[in-house]
């Protein structure tokens, strides 16, 4: 009998400071989006009302807890639902309360109802908001006219957001989208004859701050490879480009709505093909370790 292997004693990890906890990758996005919300609201009063935003957040977290418990048999971490709720609270504009609750509920429920091969395929808040814009256009609008953002606050949010994304190794997604958007804006201005400032204008607005920092970088609904992520970011910008030429007001949201799931399907199809190829190789060459 061999003596059991004994691991060398490891030093106990040092206690984590609060700032370290906050920089935990799961907490960073919620902290950041809360910061945007607070700065925006105290600077400009951006929220329709505190109650509506709180309703969206509460509905979102409650939905996540209930559905997670039922379908995943565990209590999910609330960070994702919190971001969804807060995104709904900021991005949706409506005088009615029910729209906020419904949008948040739709967003979270879509994660569990619309799944393919174990993955949810839409960014939750993107799905919820697009669904509301499609189905309840008489009662809601997106965040299209909003925030008297001065340039300094804009720069602060962009720098901070970029640093956080850099740390999370997802900045390339935002960077590719940003460069693509600006390049395509100039092309669009050339085509439409409108001032280039008008074409670039949307990206200086608050909707894009949420869109590029939270929606297109969502780890759960983006493809895995770095190159693939860059291709998808460009594809979103490209689809948005054509939608904008067609005067679609919510072009970025709709572009993500269509491109995001399509990219995931393509990735899954490629994965399947790779697995099949690997299986056939294994059959032909058992020495590679494949099962027979």
């Amino acid at each position: 009998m061999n003596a059991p292997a004994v691991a060398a004693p490891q030093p106990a990890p040092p206690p984590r400071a609060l700032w370290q906890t906050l920089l935990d990758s799961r907490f960073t996005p919620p902290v950041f989006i809360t910061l945007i919300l607070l700065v925006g609201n105290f600077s400009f009063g951006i929220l329709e009302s505190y109650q509506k935003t709180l309703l969206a957040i509460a509905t979102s977290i409650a939905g996540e807890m209930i559905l997670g418990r039922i379908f995943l048999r565990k209590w999910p971490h609330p960070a994702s639902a919190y971001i969804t709720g807060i995104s709904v609270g900021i991005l949706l504009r409506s005088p009615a309360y029910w729209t906020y609750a419904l949008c948040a509920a739709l967003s979270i429920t879509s994660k569990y109802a619309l799944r393919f091969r174990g993955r949810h395929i839409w960014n939750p808040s993107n799905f919820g908001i697009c669904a509301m814009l499609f189905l309840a256009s008489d009662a809601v609008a997106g965040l299209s006219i909003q925030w008297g953002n001065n340039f300094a606050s804009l720069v602060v949010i962009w720098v901070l957001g970029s640093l956080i994304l850099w740390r999370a190794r997802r900045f390339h997604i935002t960077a590719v989208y940003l460069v693509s958007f600006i390049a395509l804006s100039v092309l669009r201005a050339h085509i439409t004859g409108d001032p280039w400032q008008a074409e670039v204008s949307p990206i200086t607005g608050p909707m894009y701050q949420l869109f590029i920092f939270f929606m297109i970088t969502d780890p759960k609904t983006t493809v895995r490879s770095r190159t693939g992520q860059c291709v998808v970011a460009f594809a979103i910008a490209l689809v948005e480009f054509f939608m904008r030429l067609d005067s679609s007001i919510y072009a970025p949201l709709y572009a993500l709505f269509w491109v995001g799931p399509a990219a995931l399907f393509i990735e899954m199809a490629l994965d399947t093909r790779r697995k099949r190829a690997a299986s056939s190789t294994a059959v032909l060459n058992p020495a590679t370790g494949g099962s027979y």
Partner: protein
Amino acid sequence: MKRISLARVVLTIVFAGMLATPALMRRFGPQGHQPAAVHTDCQTALSRYGFCFEEVSKQAGVDFVHEAPTLDPKLNRIMPEVASMGASVSIVDYDRDGWPDIYVTNSRTGSMNHLYRNNHDGTFTDVAPQLDIADVNRPGTGVSMGAVWGDYDNDGYDDLFLIKWGKPELFHNDQGKGFTRVTDQAGLPPWINANTAVWLDYDGDGKLDLFVGGYYPEDVNLWHLKNTRMMPDSFEYAKNGGRKYLFHNLGNGRFEEVSAKAGIVSRRWALACAAADLAGTGYPDLFVANDYGVSELYINDHGHFHEAGADTGVGFAPKSGMNAAFGDIFNQGKFSIYVSNISEEGVLIQGNNLWVPEDRSGLHYQNMARDLGVELGGWSFGAQFGDFNNDGNLDLFLENGYISASRNRSYWYDFSKVAGGNSSIISDASHWPAFDGRSLSGYQQKKVWVNDGAGKFEDVAQAVGVTDRHDGRSVALADLWNTGALDAVVANQSGPLLIYKDVVAPDRDWIEFDLEGTRSNRSAIGASVTLFWNGREQVQSVSGGNGFASEDDRRLHFGLGQDPQIQKAVIRWPSGLVQTLNTLAPNRLYPVKEPQ
């Protein structure tokens, strides 16, 4: 496993139910009542709603068509947007003959304003040229945006303050026989780009003062721009608009500007204002509806104002305020406030605000527009409360429609593209895409919301004959023909002046009051009448300007319903005097002079 499968089935059903919810809300929700869309004949409308409107401008001899301003060519790309205001209407009995007259503004340089004198026979005659208040849009002086009337020197005849993008003008009414320009003697500033003003006696000294709300900054000459950076720096938080003015009446034909001293300091983009004693102090409070931002409510503490918009609930959510009208819609002796905003399906749903005073200590309001069904009115402008069917409940007439050009090409995409951007882009007109003949919330259906007295308003505009699709701006109410019915006069941007004659079912009674101050200002502006009948109570106040760029007739009209028993009318004069009238009969106009 089975449990999960069952749960998944339930989840799918719930999810489908959620997706169907908007359709269900449309059908059964608070806004679920479809407007009475079919235009019916007057008799049908009378039997259904107790009234109908007949558009009679042609029969009345009124053929006025508003002309929009043409500003600096640097603004050509977005001229339809920048030049989208100026049509206004106000009611005045300028010659004190007991018949309301109509004053309308024009806005093309060189165009004429009109004063339609009531001929007592259903027709009107333009007398502005002979009275010297027509040619007021001369080159270099700016153009008219509105007019408010008030007897600033207490001589018994209402004088005219002309609201302009340009040189504001004050005209003294020479006993109804003519007008004398007294702007320079009055000490008014050389240039204000304003869209709203209201006469009020803010300090209770018996002399009418004047509030003017600037829109564009006063150093901007829209015909000779130094540069194109004259747009708002935000579409919801702009504070780079025109300054506010409070002209204190010194009593010798001169006015002193005291806004800062009186506590009114703001550079929001004011579009509408109204004054009434909302806080119950005996002094008129001032409500200002701002475009590109929150509304402001200036509470008057014995002649000094403090801004209480946020504290009272009306100044929290920024929208595009374009109207300020007061109405006691619940017959509880308290004014609600109606503020119009923008709603465009799928693009921007601000919703109009109906600020209803809450039943608690301190002045606080709750927005009940959605609950009562008066929230969605398109790109809304002027609105006025009035009892059109004489049933004892105040109804609501709303004008809307921003720019009607191409019927199938919209500017909304370009508008939202720029309006959501950074201030450096928004605020420069040269960054905006060209309008190029497109519409922006054009050809909209007007709203005539009938108050059922039980907490719901129903839109009956199409059914009662308000079927025009012009770009409505200003609406003013008056019993033009002394019939006991409240007619509506509508000023349309680049469109005709419309006169909607109110025809009311004959079994509905009414009463009217024509107040004249003695210790108070002679126009009795700020006086309120609370009428008690059949166990009901309704308060109305004499206004020196309300709605959007308009002023209703100063005579107060109350509908009474059928077989009314009038208990009393309590008049609160601006002087503080409270007068009670006990023996009142319906279907009469009561001239009331303030007791000395």
